[in-house]
């Protein structure tokens, strides 16, 4: 290497020692696996996803077939978790119910995301009057306890599982709007936004190319946590008789039905309750793990 002219040559040499680029997903997974808690969360969530899809194939009984001779039977070799008040296999019904919980989680979070993210981006990026109007609307929604607001929506729309999903989704909009707004406020002050403006990018390009990708990490975390909240909320609505129709094996529904027999046949309430708890716990652990794994400040 000649000394004259190429003053910056040595820096190039240094670069060769750095590792080849790793993709973001692989890096996040690696970091996730370092914590036993989030690994457990990941396993629970994956198992839950598998059950939701494969419930029909792994269930030992038909979830809807009543055996009136075996009503409220305690757990046994035949009925692993016992039977409900109509003699239907509780285990098969729980497996079937996972599908409803997953649907509730995904759809309500989807509604929250698809409305909340654009609102937050607009509010944070443009500021001024748009910000004022959007955020005051969100404040109004946040001022009510969310379950009360969900009940209100279901009361207007009529009780059904679909409406419960919509209600839970709508109630979560302000959470996303605020979250995205706050990240947007931080990101839009970064110099690369100014560089992009200097290059002639319009607002739309700046928001979608630069701002949105940089707000993703908190959104991912919030979404996993929100799935847990949605499942709980759907169960609560189901328990109040505002969710799925009575014969649907939705976990909240099952809780509500079993409530009558809480002394004589406690397994009818205990197992759906445990199922809800386990799945919510799984999503919470995963969400917490993701929060750490996605934080670049902890990057090693």
């Amino acid at each position, binding site marked *: 290497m000649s000394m004259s002219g190429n003053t910056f040559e040595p820096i190039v040499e240094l670069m060769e020692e*750095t590792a080849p*680029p790793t993709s973001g997903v692989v890096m996040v997974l690696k970091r996730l696996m370092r914590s036993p808690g989030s690994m457990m969360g990941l396993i629970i969530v994956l198992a839950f996803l598998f059950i939701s899809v494969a419930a029909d194939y792994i269930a030992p009984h038909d979830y809807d077939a009543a055996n009136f001779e075996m009503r409220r039977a305690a757990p046994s070799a035949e009925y692993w978790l016992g039977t409900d008040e109509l003699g239907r296999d509780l285990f098969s019904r729980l497996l079937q119910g996972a599908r409803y919980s997953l649907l509730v989680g995904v759809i309500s979070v989807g509604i929250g995301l698809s409305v909340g993210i654009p609102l937050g981006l607009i509010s944070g990026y443009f500021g001024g009057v748009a910000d004022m109007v959007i955020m005051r609307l969100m404040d109004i929604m946040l001022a009510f306890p969310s379950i009360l607001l969900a009940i209100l929506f279901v009361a207007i729309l009529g009780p059904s599982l679909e409406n419960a999903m919509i209600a839970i989704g709508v109630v979560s909009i302000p959470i996303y709007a605020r979250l995205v707004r706050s990240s947007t406020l931080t990101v839009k002050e970064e*110099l*690369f936004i*100014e560089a992009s403006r*200097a*290059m*002639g990018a319009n607002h739309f390009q700046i928001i979608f190319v630069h701002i949105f990708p940089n707000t993703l990490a908190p959104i991912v975390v919030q979404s996993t946590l929100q799935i847990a909240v949605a499942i709980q909320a759907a169960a609560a609505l189901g328990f109040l008789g505002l969710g799925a129709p009575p014969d649907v094996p939705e976990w909240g529904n099952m809780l509500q039905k079993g409530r009558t027999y809480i002394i004589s046949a406690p397994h009818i309430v205990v197992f759906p309750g445990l199922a809800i708890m386990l799945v919510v716990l799984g999503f919470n652990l995963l969400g917490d793990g993701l929060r750490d794994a996605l934080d670049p400040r902890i990057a090693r």
Partner: protein
Amino acid sequence: MKTHGRVSNKRVLVEVNNLKKYFPVRSGLFQRISGWVKAVDNVSFHIREGETFGLVGESGCGKTTIGRTLLNLIPATEGEVIFDGRSIFQLSSSEMKKLRHDIQIIFQDPYSSLNPRMTVGQSISEGLRIHTNKSRQEQHEIVSDLLRRVGLRPEHATRYPHEFSGGQRQRIGIARALALRPKFIVCDEPVSALDVSIQAQVLAILRELQKDFNLTYLFIAHNLSVVEHFCDRIGVMYLGKMVELADREELFRNPLHPYTQALMSAIPIPDPRMKRQRVILQGDVPSPLNPPQGCRFHTRCPLAFAKCGEEEPPFKAYGDEHYAACWLLETGEPGASKLRPAELPAENVSVL
């Protein structure tokens, strides 16, 4: 006047006339405007094609604001900026977008200036995607060429900014600014955040690129020694005002304004035996929200007299293309504004 001669016959590329930028200060429940920060107050200068115009001053003196206003990134309060014969504040947004092809900026902070979620190649080619419809292959070739020019390698295009050091990131920022082959680049303290050894490297790249692409630079800095080696003409700013403007050699040989003299005396000399007299300014820069009456520098000027606090000195030529704003120059005595430490009250000057 060698450097001056090199460009003095070239046409003027950028002309700034009476530029003002006031930022409103809001307070109270209804966010009423309670005052104005006069970040840039009536500044005029011009930059010739192929020239490097240096802008120096303490932090908060408005030099960065001038850079941002020149690019129309923040709207000016008053005045005009003429680029290549066109007043940029009067352009429609589509004309402005076209003009952005020709004007680019390099930032001080190499960490915040690159999107952490975009690869280096994507960052550099962003302008190409906005202004042209070049194919992926063409974009790739341009990016590879630019990376080579700034001393990186084409394969670095697929990496992310966090894999690079500050100096390397700054060079990526330079490559990005160059992607559209601009005529004029605002360098906003491009080396202030870098180690001294890396500074020289980045400056060398900037100079080489200037030669290759016939670039015109507005070079903003707070370090006079960097400016001395890099700029053809230099403007010195204090609290939103231009206090002195001259050819580089002229400015360093014969600084007229006491503020410039104080800045010069702060340049370190790499010779421990060299004794010299340093002028250390007392106090802090006054708030631009409430700048002093008269000459803005009079509160800290060791040579201030009554008139300085009453009336603002005119910014006019005292010699060949050498402008300054100081009442001492108006009194007519040659060398009146020279700081002679021996004559000064002891508390204003320390001799090192």
